[in-house]
């Protein structure tokens, strides 16, 4: 696939896997997935969501008002799920191969 998927984009897609989430929900899930290493800023999150929406990987999935604040939910589209699956497998393959080589070289405990 020609589409380049950078880390924040990958994390946003992963955060939406199998579950719709609103903006702050995505930020929290990304933080959890990255073991607290990545905390997306709101501006970056919405720029990413806009782009993914444009590419047809993410779609709005309802709105609600909580404590007088508007929450808009997002979900993966079928295309988004497929893209996330492909990218996950690609990353896993690279990781597996890297670990195998490290083991062969005796560099991994």
């Amino acid at each position, binding site marked *: 696939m020609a589409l380049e998927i950078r880390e924040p984009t990958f994390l946003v897609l992963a955060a939406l896997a199998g579950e719709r989430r609103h903006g*702050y929900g995505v*930020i929290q899930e990304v933080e959890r997935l990255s073991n607290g290493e990545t905390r997306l*800023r*709101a*501006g*970056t999150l*919405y720029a990413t969501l806009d782009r993914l929406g444009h590419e047809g990987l993410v779609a709005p999935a309802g709105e609600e008002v909580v404590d007088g*604040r*508007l*929450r808009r939910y997002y979900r993966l589209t079928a295309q988004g799920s497929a893209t996330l699956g492909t990218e996950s497998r690609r990353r896993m393959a690279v990781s597996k191969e890297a670990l195998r080589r490290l083991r062969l070289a005796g560099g991994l405990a």
Partner: protein
Amino acid sequence: MSGLEHRYGRLLRAYPKSYRHERGAEILGTLLEGSPPGRRHPGIRDVFDIGLRGGQMRMALGAEHLVRRVRGDLGATVAAIASATVVVSFFLPWYVAPFDASGHTGAVRVSALNAGGGRFFVLALAAAIAVTGFLGPRVRALAVSFALVLLYATWICQANSPAITTAGSYDGGLIEGVGAHLGVASAYVALVGSALHMARPGVARVTSASES
């Protein structure tokens, strides 16, 4: 509205108005939800992040507008300027120059148009640009069709020119001399402008109604 909410709202002005209208409330909600209790001012990283994203979006929007102008409005504008130039440079000297031309006797007779054509052309171009700037999109669109009529009229003039020139042996046409040639060139520019105008998307909407 809390102080923090108010300050976040002000921060969101970094985004273009249309985007703020569409997403502002949602982004504000996300910012507030992510703020630790007791926070009174937006964090520096959010200020930087939203400033950057808003700036990017404004630039993208500006580029989009520019492209739209070049593809559409500019075509009509070019057509309007050129048509107006043709009108003034062709017809104004016609009325003014015969007095000039009548003074010329001899082998070379100057057509009404050619006398002072160069000077008139520069004046006409300046006037046309000034006037076109004030024209609405509908008038500019009208100028497009007018440009086509002018081009046809130019050919007619060219064909009938010997009859229009002052008497004499000189057989030169109306399309003679620098000014007149520039006038004809303007007609062609008007035509190109019209083509540009016609080629842009949504032309029917713009020619029948005002542009948003």
